[in-house]
């Protein structure tokens, strides 16, 4: 029967689409007696909808490693040659664990990454079991450092802080009473939206709608229409710029008149590019202080832009993550994770993003959160909040 065939064909098509995966092999370890090769791994989405952010992360890391090699850093009296092993995790939690195992097999000294919370959390168990140090430049979900893994660190304020700052900004500064929340059901988007919801409620905000989409969707007309029916003053979105950018146009076209607030994943030039005129007036938050106010922000931005073009989002955090890892290795006189891990926890490092110190969980101490707004086609910083210990 034809229908049987059709069902089979559909299943086959699905199987093919799921089976697609990328691979890349790298890293050689040929070390002479007075030179050691230090392998640093990183995993980011280098293909798919978040490829522009993943590439930005990789560039930030590559810049730090190139500089370290040019400087001729020595670890334990031996000249260190840093080698970057970069893998594509496709922002997919399943792929992330495969890639993490690959890193472990390649015997990396440390991992910078992953980019997304959804990939960082499952991968962190694999790194922890292998005793490999992991510093995430950008995963903000609270769970990551709350699992009790001594190998897990991050150089960015977590969602508890960011969600709190966002919710306080929404209820106090923007005076929002009826709030709609939309998230992309990833560990990042959902986690941030949950934190936001909690604090917004505590501050007297009424949650009139809690709707969901996915991190691959482009059509939000139906959910936005439902949200419009609830007449909110403010819409919060937890997710990335590839969703929120096009979403801005759709918000405008259905005539939803609510203020738009979102987190760090949408705080990018791409958001404005995709949202066009409709992005005007949107608010976002970004952990840390604006690049131009970072201690070494201006110098970093100039160097980076000359080499790789515009900074998308997390490149400065990646750069710092590599440098603090190398600083810990130097202090311990060894690139072995078990040797430099204790040093990393104690280190105080002046990065380009801020002064970095870790608390006992591996979160950054005194994380700042800055609120931005799109004005004249650009993200303009409004105010910087926080500076208190991460919870």
């Amino acid at each position: 029967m034809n229908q049987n065939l059709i069902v089979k064909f559909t299943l086959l098509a699905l199987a093919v689409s799921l089976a697609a995966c990328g691979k890349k092999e790298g890293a050689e370890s040929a070390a002479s007696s007075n030179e050691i090769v230090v392998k640093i791994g990183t995993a980011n989405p280098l293909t798919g909808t978040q490829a522009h952010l993943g590439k930005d992360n990789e560039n930030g890391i590559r810049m730090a490693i190139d500089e370290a090699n040019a400087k001729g850093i020595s670890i334990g009296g031996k000249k260190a040659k840093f080698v970057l092993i970069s893998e594509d995790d496709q922002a997919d939690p399943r792929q992330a664990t495969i890639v993490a195992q690959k890193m472990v097999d390649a015997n990396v000294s440390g991992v910078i990454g992953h980019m997304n919370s959804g990939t960082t959390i499952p991968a962190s168990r694999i790194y922890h079991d292998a005793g490999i140090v992991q510093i995430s430049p950008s995963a903000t979900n609270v769970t990551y450092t709350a699992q009790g893994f001594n190998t897990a660190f991050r150089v960015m304020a977590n969602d508890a802080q960011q969600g709190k700052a966002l919710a306080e900004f929404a209820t106090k500064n923007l005076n929002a009473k009826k709030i709609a929340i939309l998230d992309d059901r990833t560990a990042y988007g959902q986690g941030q939206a949950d934190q936001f919801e909690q604090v917004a409620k505590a501050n007297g905000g009424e949650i009139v709608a809690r709707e969901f989409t996915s991190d691959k969707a482009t059509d939000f007309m139906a959910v936005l229409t439902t949200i419009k029916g609830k007449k909110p003053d403010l819409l919060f979105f937890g997710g990335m710029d590839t969703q929120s950018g096009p979403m801005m146009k759709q918000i405008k076209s259905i005539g939803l008149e609510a203020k738009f607030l979102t987190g760090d994943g949408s705080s990018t030039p791409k958001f404005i590019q995709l949202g066009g005129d409709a992005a005007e007036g949107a608010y976002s938050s970004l952990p840390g202080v604006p690049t131009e106010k970072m201690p070494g922000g201006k110098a970093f931005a100039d160097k980076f832009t000359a080499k790789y073009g515009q900074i998308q989002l997390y490149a400065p955090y990646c750069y710092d993550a590599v440098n603090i890892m190398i600083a810990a290795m130097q202090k311990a006189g060894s690139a072995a994770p078990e040797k430099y891990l204790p040093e990393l926890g104690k280190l105080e490092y002046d990065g380009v993003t801020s002064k970095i110190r870790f608390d006992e969980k591996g979160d950054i101490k005194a994380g700042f959160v800055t609120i931005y707004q799109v004005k004249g086609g650009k993200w303009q910083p409004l105010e910087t909040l926080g500076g208190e210990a991460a919870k």
Partner: protein
Amino acid sequence: MDIFLQQLINGLVLGSIYALVALGYTMVYGILELINFAHGEVAMIGAMVCLAVANTLLAQAGLPGAAVLGIGLLVAIGACVLLGFAIERVAYRPLRRAPRLAPLITAIGVSIVLQNIAMMIWGKQYIPFPALLTATPLHIGGATVTDVQIGIILLSALIMIALVLLVQKTKLGRAMRATAQSPEVAGLMGVDTNHVISLTFMIGSALAAIAGVMVSAYYGIAHYYMGFLLGLKAFSAAVLGGIGNIAGAMLGGLLLGVIESLGAGYIGPLTGGVLGSNYQDVFAFFVLILVLVFRPSGLLGERVVERA
């Protein structure tokens, strides 16, 4: 009520686009009993070509947005017609007498090749589609509808009427129907079946190009991977309506669009919050499975006797 009306219109817009793509699947299936899995990618190429042309024209400046879109659309249709012709020539014609699985595999192959070519030319990122039409919101009975949405629905309706007339009233249409019934007999009666099959692919590809341009202009983005889900949804729409049946593809497309939209809008309240709006795709496919269980040949499909 106004929200319901707005959801309905959202669904009709989405459904019109699905229907256009579904027609391509159903026409090819009707004639060759082949599922052209590269069809979604043809729509993607259409969107990308239109985008490239529009950006080049805008860089020269001087033309109004609608004219730029018109030219972009025409170039995209031209490119996709050629592409459709080439795909059939290269990937399907040599396998006309091969077991049925062989052209299916080449279809999937062509789909992957097209995706990768698009990725190499236009990159892996979401590309913003220039705002060529300024969507003016219109208020109809409390619902807000833009002129772009109405344009999509009207244009799709026009194209579908034209297609029905082509198939029912013209000599080419008669040749297509004859070829669908039996290529051998049609050939004996003097129909150049190869020519008819080529034309079917070209017409289907033109429809896909239009749908691709509509999707990217409507949502304001294009992406090398956009053809996959669009193709899968449209294929499901064709199956829902009864694959091989032209009216079925239109009905299936519109139904799938409306179900998806209403599903996303009302699935939360209906299930008491157990399933959220992120289940919109699941909802659409669930309906598809239900229909196939009770009517395996689709809503308007007829049980066809297996050809000898």
